[in-house]
């Protein structure tokens, strides 16, 4: 006879608030008049994330004492899972602040209508009539809700659905950039095709695990004792040769699917392209929050499998550990080595994110219980630095200047149109003089990513490497430190360019760049990438290459790099990230104590 399950609504409250607000956001799109939509959505989104975090805070003392399994483990709220949820909520809040900022140019980073074909009159019309794609806010909420669920379930099917709930909005968001729209759409297509492939691998792995255990839950349902992956492993079902193959193959496929989301080598190919093509605020959100969710899910799956396998078959356990070790080493190597030859800021940050996935995996490979705490701290430190860094990237822009028509340091939009972001590293030269505070914040984020003492990143890396070392993997920890040193070099290279090199467009040494515009596109929408040294007085368009197909040189114009003022939200986000980076680096003990409580992940 069927009995209605009892549902612990309080335990679900953070998820319900965030996802429910996403649903309300869709209704807002349907019923609120266009003028009021943007403000309504921003308030709703921020309130939902704050509300979700409030519920997490309320739940915390209770969960630390007694983890909760809702509906037999569909949502398993352990301290680790709840900690990951909290970090995702905080980072998503900061990410949305960056998304919401229209900057002094009055434009956000998103296309007026993402469905319009680039370069058509329809797109032009949509831009001039000031349309806005406010659907991004519900999409962000769905993604954030999916991430929170992804990190806090014991049920592999729920994990799969959460994976899709977090991925599908991100695929769409990637395609919505206001500028460089072809790149943006391309990034979305790549992300989508590879993401769909990875989730297909994941779900086939789940099917094989189900074939092995007759259940897709690790700990199983308390009301049905003996059913579950861990009970199945222990009850000697693993004795039969064929069944054990199912388990190993299934776990490997699931882990591959998760490693893809983490962005670990050899499943990292999408990361640089997607991070470059997506609108920068979305890149920040995605880089920080997805990483938290994916790593949290990976840690839980791996450690739960380990609980079962360790006692039954130490050999398989050792092999599983080797897989993670190899992936960690490869990821660190590719992230740092390929990262050090990048010439684009967004790509550099993308490879830095790959390298960080490697450092995180070093800790995870240690397979000891302290690692949970240090992983959460690492994710927090990395996420804060990432959102802050991408927030800074959104403010460093190109501006077209017609020679002789304006002051060098005139107000934005006065003598030239502000274009897209200036992402070439060479363009960042001299930023230290143009915007000292912004440069200081960016430097702080880079130092934290590099793991310099007195920043959050140092404590984080220390935790990850000691995790590996206490798991008996001394040499892996040493490799991690070596990779960090290489990484320091490439962060410092960017810092040197920003602080010590003179700007290319410094009036003392004028450089002429030619802008090429596409017929039909409005001013400010041409895709121009300036590439280095054009000698003084050059008149040919040698320095500029346009990526659109039909190109025509209109006037000799200079592209200079400018820093646009934030309208508030992004500045707040960057400031909070910078302060948090310092505080976590100097007085980490309160947060460390919190994550220490979170190192329990068995319900």
């Amino acid at each position, binding site marked *: 006879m069927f009995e209605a399950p009892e549902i612990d609504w309080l335990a679900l409250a953070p998820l319900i608030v965030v996802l429910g607000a996403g649903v309300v956001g869709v*209704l807002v799109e349907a*019923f609120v008049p266009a003028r009021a939509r943007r403000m309504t959505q921003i308030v709703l989104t921020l309130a939902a994330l704050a509300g979700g975090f409030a519920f997490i805070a309320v739940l915390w003392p209770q969960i630390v004492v007694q983890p909760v399994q809702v509906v037999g483990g569909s949502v398993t709220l352990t301290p680790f899972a709840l900690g990951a949820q909290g970090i995702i909520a905080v980072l998503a809040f900061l990410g949305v602040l960056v998304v919401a900022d229209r900057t002094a140019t009055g434009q956000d980073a998103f296309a007026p209508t993402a469905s319009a074909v680039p370069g058509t009159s329809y797109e032009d019309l949509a831009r001039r009539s000031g349309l806005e794609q406010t659907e991004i806010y519900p999409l962000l909420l769905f993604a954030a809700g999916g991430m929170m669920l992804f990190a806090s379930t014991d049920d592999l099917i729920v994990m799969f659905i959460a994976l899709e709930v977090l991925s599908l909005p991100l695929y769409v968001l990637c395609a919505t950039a206001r500028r460089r729209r072809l790149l943006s759409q391309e990034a979305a297509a790549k992300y989508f095709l590879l993401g769909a492939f990875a989730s297909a691998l994941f779900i086939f792995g789940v099917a094989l695990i189900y074939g092995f255990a007759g259940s897709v839950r690790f700990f199983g349902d308390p009301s049905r004792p003996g059913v579950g992956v861990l009970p199945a492993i222990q009850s000697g079902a693993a004795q039969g040769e064929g069944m054990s193959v199912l388990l190993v193959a299934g776990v490997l496929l699931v882990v591959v699917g998760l490693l893809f989301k983490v962005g670990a080598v050899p499943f990292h190919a999408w990361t640089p392209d997607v991070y470059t093509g997506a609108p920068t605020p979305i890149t920040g959100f995605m880089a920080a929050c997805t990483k938290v969710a994916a790593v949290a899910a990976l840690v839980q799956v791996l450690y739960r499998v380990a609980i079962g396998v360790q006692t039954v078959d130490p050999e398989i356990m050792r092999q599983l550990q080797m897989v993670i070790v190899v992936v960690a080493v490869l990821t660190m190597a590719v992230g740092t080595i390929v990262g050090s030859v990048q010439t684009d800021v967004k790509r550099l940050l993308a490879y830095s994110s790959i390298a960080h996935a490697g450092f995180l995996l070093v800790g995870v490979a240690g397979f000891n219980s302290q690692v949970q705490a240090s992983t959460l701290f690492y994710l927090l430190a990395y996420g804060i630095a990432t959102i802050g860094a991408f927030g800074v990237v959104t403010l460093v822009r190109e501006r077209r200047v017609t020679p002789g028509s304006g002051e060098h340091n005139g107000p934005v939009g006065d003598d030239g149109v502000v274009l897209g972001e200036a992402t070439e590293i060479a363009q960042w030269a001299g930023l230290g003089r143009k915007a000292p505070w912004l440069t200081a914040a960016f430097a702080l984020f880079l130092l934290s990513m590099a793991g310099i003492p007195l920043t959050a990143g140092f404590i984080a890396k220390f935790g990850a490497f000691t995790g590996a070392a206490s798991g008996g993997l001394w040499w892996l920890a040493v490799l991690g430190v070596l990779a960090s040193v290489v990484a320091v070099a490439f962060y410092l290279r960017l810092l040197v360019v920003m602080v010590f090199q003179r700007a290319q467009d410094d009036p003392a040494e004028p450089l002429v760049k030619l802008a090429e515009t596409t017929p039909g596109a409005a001013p400010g929408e041409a895709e121009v990438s300036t590439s280095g040294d054009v000698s003084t007085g050059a008149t040919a368009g040698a320095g500029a290459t346009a990526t659109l197909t039909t190109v025509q040189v209109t006037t000799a114009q200079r592209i200079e790099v400018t820093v646009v003022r934030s309208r508030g939200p992004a500045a707040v986000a960057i400031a909070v990230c910078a302060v948090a980076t310092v505080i976590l680096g100097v007085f980490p003990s309160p947060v460390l104590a919190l994550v220490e409580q979170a190192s329990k992940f068995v319900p």
Partner: protein
Amino acid sequence: MNPYVPILILMAIGAVLALGGVAASAVIGPKRYNRAKLDSYECGIEPTPHAVGGGRLPIKYYLVAMTFIVFDIEVVFLYPWAVDFTTLATFGLVSMLVFLALITVPFVYEWRRGGFDWV
């Protein structure tokens, strides 16, 4: 009796009806051809040598097709519920109503924003 026999009988009846219809109309139907009848058939639309827009379909088609896919597939959850309707009782009913309400939200969105307007 083999459980597949009724299915085979059903298939046989279907085949007889379909083939019989075609055969009967070919034998006893009047044959008066004109230009319109010999023309290629395109759902009542005037046939053109080339499809409008170089073989591409209007974007509205994709919009409606995508909407259809989603709403069509979501219905799959109604079947298990319908099978065990009485056992699941109030809990099942409430769950299904919540589910249907959630399905309605994107529908309302698409409807309000003109997704179903054929221009």
